[in-house]
């Protein structure tokens, strides 16, 4: 087999392998992902058992310690629709009233159960427009 043909075969094999891997990657990413939703979207169309990535703001005064976890409400960033969340696991330092959070939840009856350790609180006002600050501390 002359070198040029060998090279062509190598190239074709490499490309095929790459495409197959990329395909596997893409496929599993769609099945392993959880939809990012807001509270109003969750209220509209949550299926029990499916996991969602909920983003929104913590409703002021809603944080309560219950047993070894907490309950709180998450509302739309710009709106009032809110959902209750029950969560156990690590609570990030910046977590408090009014902070933006991301938490993976699944619907369980009337409430949403947060996946352990999935609570992420956004670094507040890191690069936010200062005019949007409402007197909340940095």
């Amino acid at each position, binding site marked *: 087999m002359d070198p040029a043909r060998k090279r062509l075969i190598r190239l074709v094999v490499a490309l095929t392998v790459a495409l197959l891997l990329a395909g596997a990657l893409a496929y599993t990413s769609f099945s392993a*992902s959880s939809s990012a939703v807001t509270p109003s979207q969750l209220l509209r169309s949550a299926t029990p058992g499916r996991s969602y990535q909920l983003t929104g703001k913590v409703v002021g005064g809603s944080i309560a310690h219950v047993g070894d976890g907490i309950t709180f409400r998450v509302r739309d960033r710009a709106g009032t629709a809110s959902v209750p969340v029950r969560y156990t696991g690590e609570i990030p330092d910046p977590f408090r009233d009014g902070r933006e959070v991301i938490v993976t939840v699944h619907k369980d009856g009337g409430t949403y159960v947060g996946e352990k350790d999935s609570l992420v609180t956004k670094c507040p006002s890191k690069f936010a427009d200062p005019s949007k600050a409402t007197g909340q501390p940095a």
Partner: protein
Amino acid sequence: MATVGQACLLIALGLCGYGAVASIYGARSGRDAFVLSGRRSLFAVAGLATVAFVILEAAFLRSDFHYTVVATHSSLTTPWYYRLAAMWSSQEGSLLLWLFLLAVWSSVALVLLRGRLRDVAPYATAVQLGLAGFFSGLLVFTAQPFETVPVAPSDGIGLNPLLRHPSMMIHPVMLYSGYTLFSVPFAFVVGALVVRRVDAEWIRATRFFSLAAWLCLGFGIILGARWSYSELGWGGYWAWDPVENASLLPWLTGTAFLHSVMIQEKRGMLKIWNASLVLATGILAILGTFLVRSGILDSIHAFVEEGNTIAWAFTALISVLVVLSVYLVITRRNDVLRSEARLDSMFSREAAFLANNLVLVGVTFVVFWGTFFPLISEAVTGSKAAVGPPWFDRYVVPLVLILVLLSGIGPVIAWRRTTVARLWGTVRGPVIFSAVVAALLLVGTNAAQDTESLILFLAATFAIAVAVHELWRGMRARQLMTGEGPPRALVGLVRRNRRRYGGYIVHIGVSLIFIGVAASSAFQHERDAVLRPGQSARVGGYTYTYLRPTAKIEQRAGELERISLGSKIRVTKGGKQVAMLSPTRGYYPTNAPMLGVLSRYFIGDSTSEVGLKAGWRRDLWIAEQPDISNLMPIVRKGDAVFAKAAAGGVSAQMRAIFLGQALNGLVARYRASAPPAQFRIIVSPLTGWIWFGAMIVLFGGFVAIWPAPGAARGLVRARYTARVARDLSRA
């Protein structure tokens, strides 16, 4: 002075425009005067950026709250070194830092490369000025750092307490230095492609900057991981957060480039590939900068803000860079980017390097896909979906495994071609060593529990053994040739081939890092426990005992900085005390006007101070979430009392004294009778190997980047080499 600062940025913007045009015009028309003028524009921009930078830092240092950025990111109780760092915790300040570093590093590059690549340099200068112009434009039009208010507030909001950590001071500077240093090879490859001269010289000339960029970026990433581990309360160092990934992407392609460039130098191959890698690295660096501040992805840093001007601007810049890069590569692919040689054999160092590149690009693709998946899924299915760390781990870990294995094979395989017999001869020692280590691990530890980790341990052991073996063999060979003693031979060996042996040292460091990562992930013991004073928890063979609560009021500059509530924890193993840890939670006061006088000390930001005892074999880690719910009713009553006192005409001085007494009382109460607190306890093996390995990587990088022994000696040898070369041509 604020107007001076703003003016500097405006003048810089103008000079960027002029300089870019002058450089290109000068290059095309052959009029050197304009090329030189363009160079000087870049130097002038560097000078102006420095002036602006200094003015803003000075404002932070003296806590001039007329400046909006100072008021929103610093305060009177912020220590001076954190005030300096507070500048780049703001959008405006961080953009200014970027511009400053870009202009300074580009100027250094132009000075060091003066006289070389004379046809390429003007275009590279134009690219640098274009990038500088972009950032200047942002600073002038949308994110003005020198905005002032006529009446300064009495105190600033303060630096986010999470950022009060030495790592966080240096982390952005290192990352940005990495990004901006990568812009040098990026600019030069664009210039080289434009003038159609993509051979050896542009690589050699920019080699220093590629390596420096890679080092800075890598160091910045490690610092971020270290901060996450020792400062945040979750006990991990990497979460595959989009912002973490953003800094990793250019580092991955940069690593690939550092390897594949050697193939181009030796064999003239992979020109298209190298050019594409450098272009991709530069674009990914800009993309990384963009992700942190754009809001297009939900993450711990980014906000989804609609109609964000900065996001649009960056998107435009990235699109321009992508189109330009693709155009240049495609139009040059047949003439200057054609390979001079072909891959002789799959059993050669070229093939190993190529495999290394393919794996690294594979990891880059995985990380890129996972990071941008919310946008991809939105485009495909209409709804945003995100993938979590398990997905990343599943694909990255096997690829990393192959990479570590390759780092052991690459050094022992010869260029062009080798045979299996030869390869086995050189690799035999390290393989046997790894087998022995494998046996020890299987017998003496529980490493067999996690197959992936076990294989990674072996691959890493193999890679380290190969690197050490290479150093040993090289030293012996040199001893035979020069008769030097072992230490001098080793030093001499490394000095004469810094890039190669520096690289081997880096491989050792990287392998150590991955050993640490594997051990601390797969064999970690973690437990969340609620403990009251006197209670213990058993984790991973260690007993953590809550001895007593601690409470302290910490002051700085005459002001209360924070209230620290925590505990003293004794850690024992088999009855013997191993460590005394003091996890605390710091409650920072907030200036929010609507909160009560006492409340504002307890409802503001709070941060974890982790209790950590690091060791070679394992880390003992603990974080605490105290329960202040029994203090809050008293606090709220106190709020009411103070409000009445203020309304009833009690003097501010008296109120301040009472406030001090009240806080002391609350703190003493916690110390005396704290309710059970929530603890997260982690025992993770070999975590320290990660940070130690990182230091080895840095050391290896310095060895690789250090210039060779003195010019004078170089001259003598060069003359000798030249004479020998003439002999060769006459033979």
